[in-house]
């Protein structure tokens, strides 16, 4: 149920994101989802890819500061209200979402939401109990 996300430190300099994308492309790393959080000087690039361990090694070899962060991915219906329900459930149980981002898949006709919460184990239990679909790492990597 736990997915490994790459967190990459990126300086706000011209072409830096393109450089990182190139490094990954050369090694056939496929990006599933991404989000960038930034300030004026630097940002953190968060990526879900098909092979996070390999991507981390490659990026480190290229002098990037990289961390692997454990996140959850839920599958929701791609329609109004699809997101509201699972988020409300977490909130009702006192689980804070630190950040999240989403992508849609035409193939599955669903949306996928990547969630970073403080306590993965507790969140998994609550979501499963409420009937929310959690996506396995294999499903994401093989997508």
């Amino acid at each position, binding site marked *: 149920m736990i997915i490994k996300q790459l*967190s*990459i*430190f*990126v*300086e706000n300099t011209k072409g830096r994101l393109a450089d990182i994308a190139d490094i990954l492309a050369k090694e056939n790393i496929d990006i599933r989802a991404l989000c960038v*959080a930034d*300030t004026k*000087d*630097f940002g*953190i690039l968060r990526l879900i890819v098909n092979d996070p361990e390999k991507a981390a090694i490659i990026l480190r070899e290229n*002098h*990037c*500061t*990289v*961390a692997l*962060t454990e996140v959850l991915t839920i599958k929701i219906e791609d329609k109004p209200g699809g997101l509201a329900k699972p988020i409300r459930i977490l909130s009702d149980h006192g689980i804070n979402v*630190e950040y999240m981002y989403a992508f849609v898949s035409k193939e599955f006709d669903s949306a996928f939401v990547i969630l970073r919460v403080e306590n993965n184990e507790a969140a998994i239990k609550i979501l499963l109990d409420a009937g929310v679909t959690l996506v396995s790492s294999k499903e994401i990597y093989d997508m």
Partner: protein
Amino acid sequence: MFFQKEIETMNRKDLEALQLERLKRIVQYCYDNVPFYHQRLTEAKVTADKIKTLSDLQYIPPTTKADIRDSYPFGLFARPMKEMVRIHASSGTTGKPTVVGYTRNDLNMWSDAVARLCVAAGATDEDIVQISFGYGLFTGALGLHYGLEKIGATVIPVSSGNTEKQVMLLNDFGVTALVSTPSYALYMSEVAREKGYDVDKFKLRLGLFGSEGCTPEMRTQVEKGFHLFATDNYGMSELIGPGVSGECEYRDGLHFAEDHFLPEIVDPNTLEHKQEGEIGELIVTTLTKEGIPLLRYRTKDLTRLNYSPCKCGRTHVRMDKVMGRSDDMLKIRGVNVFPSQIESVLVSIPQIGAHYQLIVRREGFSDTLEVKVELVDSSLLDKFEALENLQKTVAGNLRTVLGIQAKVTLCEPKSLERFQGKAQRIVDLRNAGK
């Protein structure tokens, strides 16, 4: 261990008597052989027989780097070229280089002085020493080279550059001691790890570092990078090159070769003598040099002197690690800032790397200081807040030490420039574009 025990442990009274005798002789020698000094001493009404005590030194006008430059190339030489056996020159980053000449006796004295500090640091004839200073006009490489040969060590004159090859030789030749700048040693250890060498298996045990300052914190980093005992030595080409002073095994100050170099500490503005233990500019008189003797040479280096006996048994005065240069000192919003202070703060924060860059700008009528550091701790990437807190911590610690607010920029690892010679970490843009 000592190289010249009798001299190095001479009691202070005898040492001072020897210095006084040599001081009188060198003043007479300068008067007789160097027109520049003939004129200077005549104007100041100083003659050798007027010097009764070491403190009479204060009546001699100081010599500056500009004096040497104005006499470019050979104007201050005291011997005819026929008697000179070597010429060296400083890097001369601004204008003409400062040129120095050595007689055969000078080279002998020089290698003795270097041999002393190498032995004091712990080098022996068993050591295999890699010299990673650039050979050439620069005095660092050849100075250490001859001193180390004199004690019987095996010298590998690699010179600077080609870091991968440097690391290969460190490993393949079983090098036990390294001569370089501390920052280059740090860089070499990074490259060694990157190239997959097992640094723990290196035979390196001793670092003889010089040519740039090294704070105790930086030294700890270098010692972690390579498992060695790092020692600092000091000198400058005008005085002789390396060999002016160096640390013993106790690393509690750098022992001056006081029988050859007579130190004073003065206020850089008023030139008045400082009390023992007070920080000021180091002024040095060469007591035995023949080729280009210098009277009261202003080094511009800021340090202090400690005359108390050292545990190692040496009686020669110890100087502190150089705290900065009186002309390198950054004045930011009226506050005196030494790069070494900033380095001490940065090296004590484990989440960032040991390399850094300082950028000073003028925005409106105010100076700003930007400190660029490399983020090495990837565990902070989970939360944005952690990175912002790190920036705040660095800025806060700098503020505590410097008293000014600095902007801290986090950079990617290995993105800041590495230096093979003297590290140039300050970029002052305040006069740019004017």
